[in-house]
């Protein structure tokens, strides 16, 4: 069964271990600027939100790619980047509505989540389960049920 990476922003503590793990794994050094995931924090509100490639089923970055470098791998459901055929036109970084693909000006690499070949480092190092990697049906139900539980508490109070 296919797995998906779930982001639970409500559990994010803003520690950025995900960025550290990602950059260390991909770049061989701790360099959050080149991480494929970013946890942004709003200190006044005390809220943090992780952002990363969602591996869209119909991905704008794939649609605009003139060479097929950015493509959907049907077998694993991931949007993958083939650097060998990429012309560095950077249209993918323009097309992504979330800003989840960027180009590193120094190396010319497209910086985007590759799911670490099915074993994401960010999930391994997230200490608060804000990032989880789970089979997709269960994942969807988990989130659905978590909200249902809130309704249940409200019902208990009025009944």
């Amino acid at each position, binding site marked *: 069964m296919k797995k998906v990476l779930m982001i639970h922003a*409500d559990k994010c*503590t*803003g*520690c*950025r*271990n995900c960025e*550290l*793990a990602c*950059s*260390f794994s991909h*770049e*061989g*050094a*701790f*360099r*959050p*600027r080149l991480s494929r995931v970013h946890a*942004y*924090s709003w*200190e*006044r*509100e*005390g809220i*943090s939100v992780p952002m990363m490639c969602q591996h869209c089923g119909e991905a704008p970055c794939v649609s605009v790619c003139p060479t097929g470098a950015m493509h959907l791998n049907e077998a694993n459901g991931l949007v993958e980047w083939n650097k060998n055929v990429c012309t560095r036109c950077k249209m993918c970084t323009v097309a992504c509505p979330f800003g989840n693909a960027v180009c590193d000006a120094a190396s010319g690499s497209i910086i985007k989540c590759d799911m670490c070949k099915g074993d994401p480092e960010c999930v391994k*190092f997230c*200490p*608060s389960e804000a990032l989880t990697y789970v089979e997709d049906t269960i994942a969807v139900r988990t989130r659905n049920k978590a909200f249902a539980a809130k309704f249940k508490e409200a019902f208990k109070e009025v009944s």
Partner: protein
Amino acid sequence: MFGWTGNTLRINLSNGAVTREATDPKLAKLYIGGRGLGSKIMFEEVDPRVDPLSPENKLIFAAGPFTGTYAPSAGRYMVITKGPLTGTIASSNSGGSFGSELKYAGYDLLIIEGKANKPVYLWINDDQVQIRDAAHIWGKNVPDTTDQLRAETDDEAKVACIGPSGEKLALFACIMNEMHRAAGRSGVGAVMGSKNLKAVVVVGSGKVEVADPGGFKEAVLKARRKIQAHPVAQGLKAYGTDVLVNILNEIGSLPTRNYRDGYYPTADKVGGESLSKNNLLHPKGCFSCIISCGRVSRVTNPKYLGEGEGPEYESAWAFGPDCGIDNLEAATKANYICNEMGLDTITMGATIACAMDMFEDGILTLKETDGIPLRFGNAEGMVEMVRKTAVREGFGDKLALGSYRLAESYGRPEYSMSVKKQETPAYDPRGVQGIGLNYATNNRGGCHVRGYTISVEVLGSPSKMDPHVTEGKANLDIAFQNLTAALDSSGACLFSTFGIGADELAEMLSALTGVPYTTQEFVKAGERIWNLERIWNLKAGFTAKDDTLPERMLKDPIKTGPSKGGVSQLPKMLPEYYELRGWDKEGVPTEGKLEELLLAG
């Protein structure tokens, strides 16, 4: 270099000179980084007798080798300077992301010298360094300053700044970063204010490199598992540090009403359990933290309305039981004001407690306190005094000097619960003997985090000792003081010791830096740093006479609760402490000890 960036940035505010120097690998090995390297630079470059608020004092921001890596809960930096509250060497520790960002910009240390002739801030964007005008933000509080500086530099910049209290040289002003994290104690914010430096703004695109990536990852995963399995670390995540209120009260060692007592019957109202139930929005972690003891909180009561972070245990105690107050909303509000204005919560609360004590005894009257009846338990009055202190208005102008100078100005210094003029925190040494010895011998005055014997004496980690006995406490203190000096220098958080110790820290440090540290060498570096700080203080004029506690802790027994009748037995422990330290009877390190630590000459 691996772990270290290998670069030090030096900025002279008097003449605007910006220079880059190589971080000396030999010194890095001996002093690790952070507090250690910073103290070594103070030792080499600053006369210990200098006026702390003069241009001759220096202000050093120092990250450790772990800072910027995923070593668990190890993203911290230190501010090292001569402290204006104590006159001792001061180093104050803070979390958040600022230290890591400094490393990504390419620097282990930032040394600030001299004094700008008008308010300025520093803008560090990798190797682009500018001293910029700060007239438009002078007077602004910490959140507004942070927002404004991000708007004119980089939206993701990390900002360490002072609030109005630091500008007005309140002697216990702190340096705040990312709005809510504080290099809190010993008045480092006043030193920054004295240099006309409002803020340091940093953005970095660089990296921290690792000597042995595979070995480092393995060592980190092992350390993480140990911390995550530790019950105290789990308690900190669930309830924050404020979980300690009930624990300390249950053993009768929660200082109450300026240490008039050590037990507070309604303490649970300001404890972490109450905080979680009534005010907590969610936990927050510093950079690379796996514990997340930070509390994002809210008070909805219109009287104390606010949102922010806190309170920590020490703050809830200082604005709570120490002032005879069990109102968590008021204590939280006082904490918010301190964060926004840039004040150390421990000294603030303890100074108000001292003033309340003097008011109760008729030494202070309504005339001095701006018409506010400053009795124990007056929550509204307490919050108002914090507000006044932050801007040095009315009686707040005196409070801004700390409890010792306040009490002394009325001829009654015995009302100040402080060591070397810095207020002792929330563990009563009459019920926990080892922590009293640590207060008395601490290199920055009354301080708990530089020798947290509470871990053993109260929490039973990694083993348990009876808090009431004195036997073995000198040894225990020395072990914690040395370990913490090394840990502070590495960039790790004290709370990581709930789960790991010198073994794990040395293993991670070796894999990260490629410099082999045995456990013994790591702890030895801590001992070296402790002794270096000690020598600096002796040169500043401190003597063995200053290694003591307020008379109240030595002579007035705790009146109620489980530790009733207890006093600190410091005189029993101190000579043994000197001896085990390898110091003479006057507390001076012997030649032999200095040679052993490579400090001779």
